[in-house]
C-alpha cells in the first residue's frame, strides 16, 4: 500500500499491469486506441532483427580481437617444438564456435605463464572443450 499515491495513479498502475489479460484482450484494447497491432509487431521484429545483426557483428569483432591477442601471446612465448601442433589446434578451436567466452578463458589461462609446455596446451584444450560443451548445453536449455 502506498498512501502517498492518489486515486488516479493507483487506478492506472493497477490497470497498467498486463497480468491476467489475454492476448485477445490486449489486441482489442490497442486497436481501440487506434493502434495498428500488425504494423506494430512488424516494426518491433525489424528492431529485433537489426539489433540482433548488430550485436552479432560486435560479438564476432570481439572474438576476432581476442583471438589476435592470444595469437600474439602464443607467438611471444617459448613453445616446445613438439607442442606446436597443439598450439595450432588451440587456434583452430578459438576460430571455431567457441567465441569470446573461450577466448577469455584462454587469455586468463596464459596470463601468468612465461613458458608454455605441451602439458599446458593439452590442459587448455581440455578446458576449452569442456567450455564448449557447457555453452552447447546452455543453448539447448534456452
Amino acid at each position, binding site marked *: 500500500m502506498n498512501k502517498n499515491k492518489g486515486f488516479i495513479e493507483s487506478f492506472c498502475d493497477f490497470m497498467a499491469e498486463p497480468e491476467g489479460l489475454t492476448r485477445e484482450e*490486449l489486441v482489442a484494447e490497442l486497436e481501440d486506441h487506434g493502434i495498428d497491432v500488425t504494423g506494430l509487431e512488424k516494426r518491433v521484429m525489424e528492431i529485433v532483427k537489426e539489433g540482433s545483426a548488430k550485436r552479432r557483428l560486435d560479438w564476432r569483432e570481439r572474438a576476432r580481437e581476442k583471438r589476435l591477442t592470444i595469437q600474439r601471446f602464443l607467438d611471444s612465448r617459448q613453445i616446445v617444438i613438439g607442442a606446436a601442433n597443439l598450439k595450432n589446434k588451440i587456434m583452430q578451436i578459438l576460430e571455431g564456435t567457441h567465441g569470446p567466452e573461450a577466448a577469455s578463458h584462454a587469455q586468463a589461462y596464459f596470463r601468468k605463464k612465461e613458458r608454455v609446455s605441451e602439458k599446458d596446451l593439452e590442459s587448455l584444450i581440455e578446458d576449452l572443450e569442456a567450455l564448449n560443451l557447457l555453452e552447447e548445453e546452455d543453448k539447448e536449455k534456452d
Partner: protein
Amino acid sequence: MGKDKVLALLEAADWNDIILKLTHYAIWQARKYTWNSGSPNQLPGGKGPEDIASDAIKKVWNGTRDWDPDKYPDLLVHLKWIVKSDIEHLFSSMEHQKTGRIPTPKGDEETEPTYGEIVRDPSSPTPETTSTPEEELIAQENSRIEEKLKDELYSAVKGDENLELLLMCFEEGIDKAEAIATQTGWDIKKVYNQKRKLLRRATKLGKTLGKGK
C-alpha cells in the same frame, strides 16, 4: 552474464507478446497525466504509447538501456521500467520548461516536447511551498479534474459491488493484484476477472480518462 548469453536470451524472447503488454502498460502510464493534446494517445513530440514502447525495446537492443538478466531476470519488468521512466521524463521535462526552473535538455535522442504541451499531473500532490496565484489555480483545477474522473469511474461501476470495492482499494493506494486479493479476501483469479471487467468499463468511458476536460 556474458554478452553472448544476453544476446541469446534477447533473441529467444517472445517479442510479439512483449510489445502488446508493453504498449498496454504505456497506454495506462500515459493516462496518469493530462496532456495538452487532450489525449494520452498523443504525447509530446508526436509520439503515441506504442512509440514509447517500441523505443524502449530499441534502447535495450542498442545498449542505451542495457539489460542485466542477473539483476532483473524478467525482461518485461526492465522494459516497463524504461517506459515508465520515459513517460515521466516526457512529462516532467515539460513541466520544468513551463515553470522555467530547468533549462531545456539538449542532445537527447528523444524529440523534446515543446513548451506548454502538458496541462497537469493528477497524481502530483498539492505543493506545500509558497505558490503563485497561477499555481494555486492549476492545483485547484487539477483537484477538480481528479474528482470528476473519480465520479465518472464510480458512475461506470455503479451497482457492481466488486468493482466498487476495487475502486475503494485505489482510494487507499492499494494497487498490486496480490495486495488487493489480501485486502478483499478474493483469490488472484477474481482480481484479474475484475480487472478485465474494469478494462471494459473504462473503455466505454472512452477517452475521458486522461483527457481532463
